[in-house]
C-alpha cells in the first residue's frame, strides 16, 4: 500500500512573528523555516506504518516554490521513499492545494493520504477535508491514534467532547493531531541518504489542476496588545487585586 504525506514549508513554530509595518504581511526574510509540525507527525506516522509492514511506499508531496525542496529533503530523511514537488511560486491556498493533492493521490494510486490537521502559518485547517471531499473518500480528522488492518483504518479523533472513534475503508484521508506520535530526531546518516532520493517536479498544469479563486488579503496587522499587568508579591495582594477588579467577592 502506498501512502502519500503532504508536507508544507512554514515559519518555524519557535519564531516570534513580526508583522510588516505596511500591513503587507509578516516578515519572512531571514526567518527560520521548517516543516509544519503536524506534517512531521504525519511523516512519523507513515514511517511507523511502514515499519509495521502496513505500508510499502511513502511518497512525500509539497506545493510551493524552489525552497520547498528543503522540506522534501526533511521528509526523505524521515523515511519517505521518494517525493513529488508541485512547484508553484507564490501563495497556494487550501482549495488549490486540495485539488493538487487529490490529483497526486489519483496519479499515484495512493490508498492513504496523511496531512497535518492545520498549517501553523495560515491556521486554516481545511486542506485534508477538502481533499477527501474532492476524492469522495472517507476522512478522519484530528487523529490521535491510527490502526490499519487490511483495507480498514480505525481512527481515534480528538474532538471537543473527548475522543471519537471511526472506522473507515481505504482509500482515506487522515489528518494528524498532536498526540498521534512524537516525531523522531533525524540522524545525520538519514539526512545524507535523503540527498540521493528522487524528487519529481511537476506543475499544477501538469496535474491538470487550475488554481481556485482564493481569499484576497486586504491587510495584515498585529493583534491588539494587552495592557501591562501588575506583579504582586503575596497571595493576600493577589486576593486584594482580584477584589479590586470585582472578580471575586
Amino acid at each position, binding site marked *: 500500500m502506498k501512502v502519500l504525506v503532504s508536507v508544507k514549508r512554514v515559519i518555524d513554530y519557535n519564531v516570534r512573528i513580526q508583522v510588516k509595518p505596511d500591513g503587507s504581511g509578516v516578515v519572512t526574510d531571514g526567518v527560520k523555516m521548517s516543516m509544519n509540525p503536524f506534517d512531521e507527525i504525519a511523516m512519523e506516522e507513515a514511517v511507523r506504518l511502514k515499519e509495521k509492514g502496513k505500508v510499502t511506499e511513502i511518497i512525500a508531496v509539497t506545493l510551493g516554490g524552489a525552497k520547498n525542496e528543503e522540506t522534501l529533503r526533511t521528509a526523505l530523511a524521515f523515511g519517505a521513499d521518494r517525493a513529488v514537488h508541485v512547484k508553484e511560486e507564490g501563495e497556494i491556498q487550501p482549495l488549490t492545494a486540495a485539488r493538487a493533492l487529490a490529483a497526486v493521490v489519483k496519479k499515484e494510486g495512493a490508498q492513504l493520504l496523511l496531512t497535518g490537521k*492545520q498549517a501553523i502559518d495560515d491556521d486554516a485547517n481545511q486542506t485534508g477535508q477538502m481533499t477527501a471531499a474532492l476524492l469522495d473518500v472517507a476522512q478522519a480528522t484530528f487523529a490521535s491514534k491510527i490502526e490499519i488492518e487490511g483495507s480498514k483504518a480505525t481512527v481515534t479523533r480528538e474532538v471537543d467532547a*473527548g475522543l471519537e472513534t471511526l472506522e473507515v475503508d481505504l482509500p482515506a484521508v487522515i489528518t494528524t493531531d498532536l498526540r498521534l506520535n512524537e516525531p523522531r530526531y533525524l540522524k545525520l546518516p538519514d539526512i545524507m541518504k535523503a540527498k540521493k532520493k528522487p524528487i519529481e517536479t511537476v506543475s499544477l498544469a501538469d496535474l491538470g489542476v487550475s488554481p481556485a479563486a482564493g481569499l484576497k488579503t486586504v491587510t495584515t496587522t498585529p493583534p491588539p496588545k494587552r495592557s501591562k499587568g501588575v506583579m504582586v508579591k503575596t497571595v493576600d495582594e493577589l486576593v486584594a487585586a482580584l477584589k479590586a477588579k470585582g472578580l471575586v467577592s
Partner: protein
Amino acid sequence: MSKVLVIAEHADGKLNAGVSKTVAAAQKIGGEIHVAVFAADGAAVAAQAAQIAGVSQVLKADHAAFANPLASALDKPVVELAAGYTHVLLPGTTFGKDLAPRVAARLGVAQVSDVMAVHGPSKFDRPIYAGNAITTVEAPAGQIVATVRLASFTAAATGGSATITAVSPAASLPAHTRYLKLEAQKSARPDLQSATRVVSGGRALGSADAFKLIYDFADKIGAGVGASRAAVDSGYCPNDMQVGQTGKIIAPELYFAIGISGAIQHLAGIKDARTIVAINKDAEAPIFEVADIGLVGDLFQLVPELQSKL
C-alpha cells in the same frame, strides 16, 4: 441582501452553545438568518434554535444518517440546503472544522476559517500564526463558507420565535465510514468553552495526582478546568482540556495559568480572556508578559493558600 444559513451543532438533544455565537456573527453580516438542524430526530434541538434572537427560520432535516455528526454524511445535504443562501456559517469547533471544508470544496469556493470580525458581507478578520497576526480578507465572488471563532462573539440573545420547517435533503450514510463511539469526559464542572472562570494547569503539576490541586481550586471558585499541551501530553488530564492554538480558544472573564510558561501556542487560546492571572516560579516566564496579575512562587504552596483565602 445576504441570506445566511447557520449549521447547528448539537449532542444529546441539546444545541451547542456555539450556535448562538455563530448566529451573532451572522447578525453582523446582516440579512436573513436561518439555522439548519441535521439530526435523527431534531425536534428538541430545532425548538432551541428557534429561540435564538434574529433567526427567522429553522430548517429541520431528520434522517437516520444524521444520528452522529459525520462530516461525510452531512456535507452533501448541507450543500443541497445551501442553494439560495449567500453564506454558510459553522461554529469554529471540531464539528465545524471537520465539516465546513468539505462543503466549501463541493461548492468549489475558498473557505474563511475562524472569522473574528465582520467588516461586510465578504470582508472578515481572521487570525493567522497562532493569532500573532490578524488578516483582513475579502472572499471571492460566490457563496461564502466560513467558520466562526467563538471567543470573538457574544451569544445572540434568546427570545426569538422562528418558524420550524421540515426539510428532506437527499441523505445516506457513506458506505466507507462507520461511527464507532465517543468517549466523552462527563464532568459537573462548567464547560471550558463557555465558563466565565477557567483554571488551567501546566507541566509543572508533574502528575495526574497533583493535577487534583487544579480541580480543587477550580471547584472552589466555580471554574472550568483547562491545561497546556504539555500537561495533556504527559497524561495529567484529558485531551479535551487543551487550551491554545491547536486546542480550545476561550474567552473567560478570569483565567488562571498555573505552572504554565506561556508559549505562543498556549497564549493563542487565551488572548480574549478579560483578566489573566499567572502563578509561576520563574519570574522570567513569558506568561508574565501577558498576565494582568502575576505572582512568582511555588504553585504547590500558593494555590492552596489562595484557595483558602477566596
